[in-house]
């Protein structure tokens, strides 16, 4: 199959690797481009294992991935733009939204390295630390963390933002943050895009707001219930509400229109009595002698 009229020599293992990528692309209904920057090799190994049965993770050189894309169909070419430093490919038979969810859930907080850029504001909260007094106190203070001694322990006196989003974190600050067990970086397989049946899905589409689905189901349930009761379509689920509504309407009408029916006489008498008491209190406010002793309480 392979036509070899290149003048440059391509090692066999590279050719095999490209073929392997192409095969995977053809075999699976969808694949994604994943960023793996900052993941220690050991952790990556663990993640790969964790995905077993769900997805196949393939780490390769970008040049080989590009070549495999070039040699695949036009749709696959759309994925070129998502290749960046430290890229891997992920293949699955799963629904792309599920894949995204699985990868997001596998992310975990990690220590930041010296020289790295803060991914968001890094805040040290006020409160006790686990350190006994010692040189650590000066180390914390030297990176701008307001540390002090209290009751034989090192404490952080006030909450402080030690690095703003986008700032480079110094080696010294990074090591203090790590000692304080503050992990500002989220490490994990970062899905950049998925290709499925010619469509590219990016994280802005793949991120599902589950609370929105929950509230939509609540709304739909209420709409169905409202419609069924208001249109009087009786079912097992709403018959009690419908009867209750009819009974309320009948009572309302009976009381509001003063219909003398045994079932509502108690309410009518109570209503008359309440009205009498209200008028009595208005009258006695003007003149106590206007009402009899029974009402003066």
């Amino acid at each position: 199959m392979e036509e070899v009229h290149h003048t440059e020599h391509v090692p066999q293992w590279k050719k095999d690797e490209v073929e392997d990528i192409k095969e995977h692309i053809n075999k699976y209904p969808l694949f994604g481009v994943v960023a793996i920057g900052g993941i220690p090799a050991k952790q990556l190994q663990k993640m790969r294992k964790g995905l077993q049965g769900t997805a196949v993770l393939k780490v390769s050189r970008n040049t080989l991935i590009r070549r495999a894309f070039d040699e695949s169909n036009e749709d696959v070419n759309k994925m070129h733009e998502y290749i960046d430093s430290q890229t891997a490919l992920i293949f699955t038979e799963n629904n792309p939204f599920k894949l995204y969810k699985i990868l997001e859930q596998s992310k975990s907080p990690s220590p930041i390295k010296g020289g790295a850029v803060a991914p968001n504001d890094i805040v040290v909260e006020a409160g006790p630390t686990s350190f006994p007094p010692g040189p650590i106190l000066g180390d914390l203070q030297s990176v701008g963390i307001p540390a002090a001694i209290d009751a034989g322990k090192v404490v952080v006196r006030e909450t402080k933002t030690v690095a703003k989003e986008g700032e480079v974190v110094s080696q010294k600050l990074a090591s203090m943050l790590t000692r304080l067990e503050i992990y500002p970086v989220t490490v994990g397989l970062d899905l950049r895009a998925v290709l499925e049946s010619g469509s590219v899905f990016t994280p802005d589409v793949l991120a599902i707001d589950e609370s929105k689905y929950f509230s939509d189901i609540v709304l739909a349930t209420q709409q169905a219930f409202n419609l069924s009761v208001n249109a009087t379509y009786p079912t097992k689920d709403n018959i009690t509400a419908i009867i209750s509504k009819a009974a309320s309407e009948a009572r309302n009408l009976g009381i509001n229109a003063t219909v003398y029916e045994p079932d509502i006489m108690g309410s009518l008498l109570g209503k008359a009595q309440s009205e009498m008491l209200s008028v009595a209190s208005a009258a006695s406010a003007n003149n106590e002698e206007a009402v009899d002793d029974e009402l003066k309480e």
Partner: protein
Amino acid sequence: MEYIYAALLLHKAGKDVTEEAITAVLEAAGTEVNDARAKALVAALEDVDIEEAMATAAVAAPA
């Protein structure tokens, strides 16, 4: 509600709440009395404990 007030008035005055009594009270107030309503009221009150119905209202009534 006139009929109800008439019934309560009679009850408080220690009289029986009959069609005739209600009619007499309402006529004294200068209203035309609808026989059917007076009859219906008396019938509806047959098994009602007026004292109890008034007592529940007294508890719940505003000061």
